[in-house]
């Protein structure tokens, strides 16, 4: 079988199968498309803010919120006096407020820091 020489096989260019997914390069684009990546970004933002809020709530609960229990458990707190002023009156009438204001300031600072970090991550306007 000498036969005629077969022509050399034609070159075929091999390519990756075409994808339907449009190109999304920005994180806001991923978030808008509700892609898995976008979800991860959103979840990390919400988690960090929720952790912050719960942490500050916990501080409120163990400082201000624990007072009734402490009054019951520690008799000295009930009838102790500082410069003639009953300690319980001082704690409830005055000391609770700086704690509340301080927690508020702390929360605003940290919540805005979380948001700035998120903005840097997704490339918002600088």
């Amino acid at each position, binding site marked *: 079988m000498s036969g005629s020489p077969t022509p050399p096989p034609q070159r075929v260019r091999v390519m990756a199968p075409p994808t339907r997914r449009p190109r999304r390069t920005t994180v*806001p684009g991923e*978030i*808008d498309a*509700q892609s898995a990546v976008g*979800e991860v970004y*959103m979840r990390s*933002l*919400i988690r960090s*803010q*929720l952790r912050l*809020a719960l942490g*500050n*709530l916990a501080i*409120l609960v163990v400082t*201000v*919120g624990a007072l*009734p*229990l402490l*009054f*019951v458990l520690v008799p000295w707190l*009930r*009838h102790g006096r500082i410069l003639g002023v*009953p300690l*319980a*009156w001082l704690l*409830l*009438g*005055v000391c*609770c*407020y*700086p704690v*509340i*204001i301080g*927690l*508020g*300031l702390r*929360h*605003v600072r940290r*919540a*805005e820091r979380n*948001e700035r970090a*998120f*903005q840097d991550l*997704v490339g*918002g*306007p600088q």
Partner: protein
Amino acid sequence: MSREAITALAALLVCVLTLAVGSFGLRISRTTSDFYVASRTVGPATNAAAISGEYLSAASFLGVAGLVMARGVDMLWYPVGWTAGYLVLLLFVAAPLRRSRAYTLPDFAEFRLESQPARTLASALGVLIAVLYLIPQFQGAGLTVHTLTGAPSWVGATAVALVVLLGVVAGGMRSITLVQAVQYWLKLAALLTPLAFLLLHHGGGAAGAAARLDATDWVEPMRGPHSLYLTYSLILATFLGTMGLPHVVVRFYTNRDGYAARRTTVAVLGLLSAFYLLPPVYGVLGRRYLSTISAGDPSDTAVLDLPGHVLHGTVADLLTAVLAAGAFAAFLSTSSGLVLSIAGVIGQDVLGRRFSGVAAFRISAAFGALATLALTVLSTGLAVAHSVELAFAVAASTFCPMLLLGIWWPGLTAAGAITGMSVGGTLSTAAVMVALFGHSYGGLGGAVLSQPALLTVPLAFATMVLVSVATTQPAHVARTMVRLHTPEAVAVDRGAFRPRNAD
């Protein structure tokens, strides 16, 4: 001039001032947007003073001092709780609520839950809470006028209702914001000035003052029966109820954005704390100088009675007049906010389709104020601070779980929110009704009925979570979460929801 004349004049002056500042606002509020949200042009400092001015009601100005005078240190939890409520609101709700662009709680329910029935239920609950809160304001006005001039109590209640109506109907949100900012400072000054005179006065106090001030169950905390349950129930109701008060939520829409909402709230914490240092001092002074009180019976007029009992002559008359002016500022500012929020809800949900925006707003304001006035005249007397607390208990058992779960948990469904709010609302309202009709029972059962929050709040939360797990989420909840939590500077798609009538 007699004391009656001076105090009547002072109260009248506050009413005129309110209307004057209101009419100044009238000239600059023309569009529907001005009426509902002051077109969102209010700066944080003005807005913080306005929020505080609106929040400090008859219960703060008169009620706390009376309760402290009668029952002692445990009553200090009221002002602490009312302040801490704003902190909890700041931690979980302030920025996301502003970013939701919801104007009222029903708006938020409709937006987050994508459900018309949820909106309707939220509207009904909002009106219920506002009316519960409005009744003690009108009551306080009647009581003040009766104490100071001897006129029947419906006179004071009607006067406040009419002034509020004129202000709200004429100027809407813009003028109210200005009025309330002024009224915060008026209230602070009205408590501070007489206090300076009272503290400088070196008198011996009424007969038996020393014994009354040293009474163990007055000076020491946690002495009463079931005090642990009652205190923690009060803490839960006030810490969690603030975020569910309709007139509080409306205010957040007037902030420019989420950042401004947070900063305004911190300023509010400072302003409230400064104010709440004062009423307990009045309570202690009342204990010392007012011998007529029967133990355990709170007197809402203690603040007003003090100058007349301690000082004499024109000074006493003038200081009483200053206090009366502050009290009227308290009734007017809180009532304005409540009537405004009732008008917002009814105007949007009931009348919005039949009347133009401004007309619907005015008609529903008139309806809300007059209906509550009728209820006030009919209802029995209850200590002002306690009936306000019932409104907090209902708010904490309904709107609080809806807001907290709705903002932070994508799993909350319309069915879950509706059943949870129904369970919490029904149980807490039932307890409230028992209290309003004057029944009181002994034992732990009586304590639960008088302060139901410690049971009803966890029940509402549990119901919402359980039902939500069994039902399907709203279709667009992912987009909703994006809108609630993404800072304004990030350009993302926030969905198409717009509250009715707001823009």
